Structure formats: structure tokens, C-alpha cells
């Protein structure tokens, strides 16, 4: 009997998953988002594999301490005093790619027009470093992979913490009502009142913020704030459904009703929140690293921070490999999660569907 029941349950579950997947596939942008997320997940997993299998030498490719003195043959030129000249439009154009300024070559035997062999940092993309190296000669592609590990760890961890908190508190607020509700609502008011960035400044002053510390802090702040209010209103709608009453009449304990009737019914909304809050967490981490507040070895925000402090970001697209990959990664991964969330929204919310 129980075997048959198990079979039947399995079947129902499988059918539900199939149906939801079909619905999810309907939203093309959701699939695009899923593709982006999977791509970055692949990057995150690929890096340790490359190190372990020995394809990449840790001394060269390590995102933090790797270094390779790559030799380049550069044409020695003299930068003119006044712009524009025939060759250069503005000061930024000199030296152009493959050239080096005479002033910077500390070798009296070299003169203008010679070729001079030197190591180049930051080096443009080559077959060895497919996205080039940064101003310390470290491989950008490897940094990107490390950054995506950080982003996933932080985004998923903080979203899980935050959503677990807000789902449980929101359900409790809706279920018990009265003073418990008033207390929880004022608490979320309190959290919403605190300015977020300055608060993190303060926290980073007396706690050394590592990735998972930050994830937990972000999760708690997010979980106590506005999302409790949203989850509560969803749980209130579940609370008045007939099946909750029938559970009460048949003598279900409060905890049982809360955990087996109300929580599962707000779970889809919570999942949605989780996906969306990953977007927020990734952005927050990048902003904090960008401001230099995190005690972290490598992340996308840090890459941009470095390219900004070294002044490359105002050199336009001449050093694009220092500026674009990290910035676009943050944008795309956050956007990917957002699109997945939107796709899920259409699965769970029949009123958003086309058909």
C-alpha cells in the first residue's frame, strides 16, 4: 500500500516538475538567464580543475600571487610635447600598442626606432593569457574565475540565510499576529531605517569582513528588512484558506500547522525572493570590494577597484581587458539571476502567464 502511495507521489511530483519546466521554457529570457548562470558556474568550477590537472601552473596563473614575466618586443618611440600630431590624437594614445616611451626605458644604449625586449604589465590578451594580465602581471581570466567562485558563494549563502530568516519570521508574524506581529514589523522598520552602506562601514571597522561573514551579515540585514513584510502578507493569504481551518479542526498543533501548511505554501514566493536577493548580494559585495572595505583576496569588485586606483579606467578602451571583463561579469551574473527569477515568477504566478 505504502509502496503504491510512494509510487503515486513520485509520479505526481515528476509530472509537476515537468509542467513547471515546460512553463519555465516558455519565457525565453528565463532560459537566457539560466544559461548565463550556468556559464559562470562552469567558470567557477573550471579553475580548480585546471590547477589540479596541471594544465595551469599555479605559479603563473594563481589569481593573487601568480606572475609571469612575459617578454615583448616593443618599438621605442618618443612621445611628442604637443598634441595632436600626425600619429597621435591625444596624450592617451602614446605610446600606442606595441610601442614604448623612450623616457621609460632606463637603458642608454637604446634609441628611438629600435626594438626593445621587455616584460609588459598590464599585458594585452595573448594565447597564453586569453584576457591579458593586470598591472601586477596576474592572469585576468584566472581572476575572473576566482571572482565567480566568490560571487556564487556569497550570493547563494546570503540569499539562503536571508530567505530562511524572512520566511520563518514572516510566517510567524502572520500566524500569531498581535504583539508578535507588531514586534516583528517594528523590527523590520528599524532595519530599514539604517543606511546600508555606512552600516557596513561601521561593521567592517570592528569585524574583519571575510566573504562568508559578509554573506551572513547581508543575509541577516536582508532577511530582517522589507522581505519579512512581503512574506507576511503572502502568509496572511494562506492563513485564511480553508485547509488551514480544517487542519485546526482536526486538532493539528500550531507548530504543525505553521510548518506543514503555511510554510510550504509561501515557499514558492520565498524561492523567488531568494533568486532576486542573489542579485542584490552580488552587487553589494562588488560595491564593498570596490570601496576597498573587504578583507578578500580577489573578487570582481576588487578587480575594478584596482583598475580604478591604477588609473586605467579613465584611459578608455585602450586597456579594455582591465575594465570590461570584471564589470560585465558582475552585471551579467546579477542579470542572469534576475532573469531566472523572472522566469520562475511566471511559473508560480499564473496571472503573469500568456496562456
Amino acid at each position, binding site marked *: 500500500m505504502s509502496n503504491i502511495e510512494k509510487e503515486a507521489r513520485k509520479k505526481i511530483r515528476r509530472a509537476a516538475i515537468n509542467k513547471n519546466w*515546460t*512553463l519555465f521554457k*516558455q519565457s525565453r529570457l528565463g532560459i537566457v538567464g539560466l544559461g548565463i548562470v550556468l556559464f559562470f558556474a562552469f567558470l567557477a568550477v573550471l579553475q580548480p580543475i585546471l590547477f589540479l590537472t596541471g594544465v595551469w601552473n599555479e605559479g603563473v596563473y594563481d589569481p593573487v600571487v601568480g606572475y609571469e614575466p612575459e617578454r615583448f618586443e616593443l618599438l621605442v618611440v618618443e612621445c611628442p610635447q604637443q598634441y595632436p600630431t600626425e600619429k597621435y590624437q591625444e596624450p592617451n594614445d602614446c605610446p600606442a600598442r606595441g610601442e614604448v616611451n623612450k623616457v621609460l626605458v632606463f637603458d642608454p644604449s637604446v634609441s628611438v626606432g629600435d626594438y626593445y625586449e621587455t616584460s609588459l604589465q598590464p599585458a594585452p590578451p595573448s594565447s597564453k593569457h586569453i584576457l591579458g594580465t593586470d598591472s601586477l602581471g596576474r592572469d585576468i581570466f584566472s581572476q575572473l574565475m576566482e571572482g565567480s567562485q566568490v560571487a556564487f558563494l556569497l550570493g547563494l549563502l546570503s540569499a539562503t540565510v536571508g530567505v530562511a530568516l524572512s520566511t520563518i519570521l514572516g510566517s510567524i508574524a502572520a500566524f500569531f499576529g498581535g504583539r508578535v506581529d507588531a514586534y516583528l514589523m517594528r523590527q523590520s522598520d528599524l532595519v530599514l531605517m539604517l543606511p546600508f552602506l555606512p552600516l557596513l562601514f561601521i561593521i567592517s571597522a570592528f569585524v574583519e569582513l571575510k566573504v562568508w561573514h559578509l554573506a551572513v551579515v547581508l543575509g541577516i540585514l536582508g532577511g530582517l528588512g522589507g522581505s519579512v513584510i512581503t512574506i507576511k502578507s503572502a502568509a496572511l493569504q494562506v492563513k485564511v484558506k480553508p485547509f488551514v481551518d480544517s487542519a485546526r479542526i482536526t486538532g493539528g498543533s500550531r507548530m504543525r500547522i505553521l510548518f506543514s501548511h503555511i510554510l510550504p505554501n509561501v515557499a514558492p514566493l520565498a524561492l523567488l525572493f531568494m533568486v532576486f536577493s542573489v542579485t542584490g548580494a552580488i552587487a553589494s559585495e562588488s560595491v564593498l570590494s570596490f570601496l576597498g572595505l573587504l578583507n578578500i583576496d580577489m573578487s570582481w569588485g576588487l578587480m575594478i577597484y584596482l583598475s580604478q586606483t591604477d588609473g586605467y579606467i579613465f584611459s578608455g578602451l585602450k586597456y579594455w581587458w582591465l575594465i570590461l571583463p570584471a564589470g560585465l561579469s558582475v552585471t551579467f551574473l546579477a542579470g542572469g539571476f534576475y532573469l531566472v527569477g523572472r522566469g520562475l515568477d511566471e511559473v508560480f504566478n499564473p496571472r503573469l502567464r*500568456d*496562456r
Partner: protein
Amino acid sequence: MDENILEVKNLNMHYETISGDVAAVKDITFHVKKGESFGLVGESGCGKTSVAMSLVQLQADNAKISSGSITLDGQELIGLSENELRSVRWDGISIVFQGAMNAWNPVIKIGEQIREAIREHYPNNTKLQNIEKIKELFEMVGLSETIIDRFPHELSGGMKQRAVIALALSCNPKLVIADEPTTALDVVIQDQILNEIKKVQDLLGLSLIYISHDIAVIAEMTERMAVMYAGRIVESGPTKDIFANPRHSYTRALLESTPSVVGDKVKLNSLDGEPPSLIDEEFGCSFSPRCSNPTENCKSGKSEMGLIEVAEDHFADKCCVECG
């Protein structure tokens, strides 16, 4: 009097869903005479509302009318542009929705919602004229004038339903469709509303299509009627004739399952089984699985479905007529 205000010929409509096309309206043909009330009856999901929505072409976005023709007072409606349809809506055909449901926008006053309909079709009216008109309508359906400045949620279900009738009449439509207007109301109010509709119809000489799952209401309200099953009309004709002499076994089953208030208590015959899925290809008579005495021809699909005239102005599905 004998002129047809509405003629529907061979109308086909289907919904495109992720699990396939659902043929909701199949080969429907009927007509409504001027000043007459016409009933459309059938169980839930048989396509009654789909027919009504196709008449004004307000079907859901995924619904497609594949063929057929709808003529309102000599004007062909299929193939009209959205703008042309807009002038047909409410001015030509108006609908009495289920007012207890969300037919009213919760954040706009009742009077304003009626006024904007009049304004759309009579742009030269002044505000005062429009308000006079609304007051007139409210008096007709038995509502007080103060309702004009009320929000929908301040009204009871019955009042909302009366206001919906007033809304439907606001632009002097040629044809009114009443789509289950009493379903969500209790019996007393239901009766009041039905009387109201009847009274208004007599007063204004309205042409009316009355849609319901309740065959008793149809008997009370209409002069001619059609019975729908699984997207098809299986029997149509004068209401009296159909009640006196039902020719299709589904009509008979419907009649047998309705209690009569007068007379002895008799055991009601309920109809077993479920209506067929509208996604599957039709094979023979769609009613044959639930029919009490189906013939081999019905089941095997040797006879196709289609209406034939069995008496004057009384049509029924041919395969069922043939078998019983």
C-alpha cells in the same frame, strides 16, 4: 419583428495552449430575432462563454477564431479592425457580467465607470446629460441615485448586479448578452435580478442572449434556446418545443436532472461521466460515451455530427436523432 438581429454561421474558435489546441467552439450556427430572448445552456466548460466572448471578439489573447461569420444587424463582425470593433462593443452588443465578481474597477466610482462608457460612444454629450441618463437607468433597475458616487466595494452583491445591468443598457445596445448574471447570488436576489432583466427587456424591447447552466432559468427567461455540449450546439429551437419534445439525449438528460418544485418527488437522474477533453480529435458523436443508449454508428464515428431540422425551427444533432 421576424428580422434577425444576430446571425452566427459555422463559427469555429480554439485556444492555443502549451498542451495543444483546445477547440472550444465547433461549427456553431444560430440566430437571434429582434426583440427576442435567446437562451444558451450547457454544463460548465462547454463553451457558452467562449461563444459570447467571440461575438464581441473579447476572447483571451491565445484564442483564435478560425472560421465562420457573425452578422449583427447586417454588419459582418469577423475581420473588423480593433477600432471598428470598439464602436460595435457596448453600442451594438453589450454584456451583463457577473457583477458580484470583479466586473467593477475597485478604485473608480460606479457613476464614473458608466459615464465613461457613454462618453466613448456619445462624445458630444455634456456631463449633465450623461448623469441624467445614468439616473434614468438607475431608476429603471431599482437603484437609488446616490450610488453614482459610491465605490464598488460599498455595494452589496445584488446592488452591484443591478448596476451592471444599468451599465449594459447605458448605450442603447442592439443586443445584450447576459452571461450567467445570477450565478454568484443567493436565490432571493437571483429572482429579483431575473425579474429586473425581464422587466427591462419588456420595457425596451431588447434583444437578449441569456447564458446559463441552469435550464430552469432558461425556461423562465427565453423564447428560443440552444443546448451546447462540448463546444457544439446539439439541439436548438423554440424553448417550449424543446421542453415538450427534447430530441437529443443530452437535452433529455439535462431535463431529467433538474428538480421540479411542483408535483411529486421523483428521483433525479444524474448524468455519469465527464465531458470529453476538447484537445482530442473528435471521433463520432462526442456524447456517445455518456449516452444511455448509444448505437454502434454513434460510437464508431460512422455518422458525423451536424444539425438537422426535426420540426419547424427545431434542430437537433443528426446522429442522435437517427438513433433515438
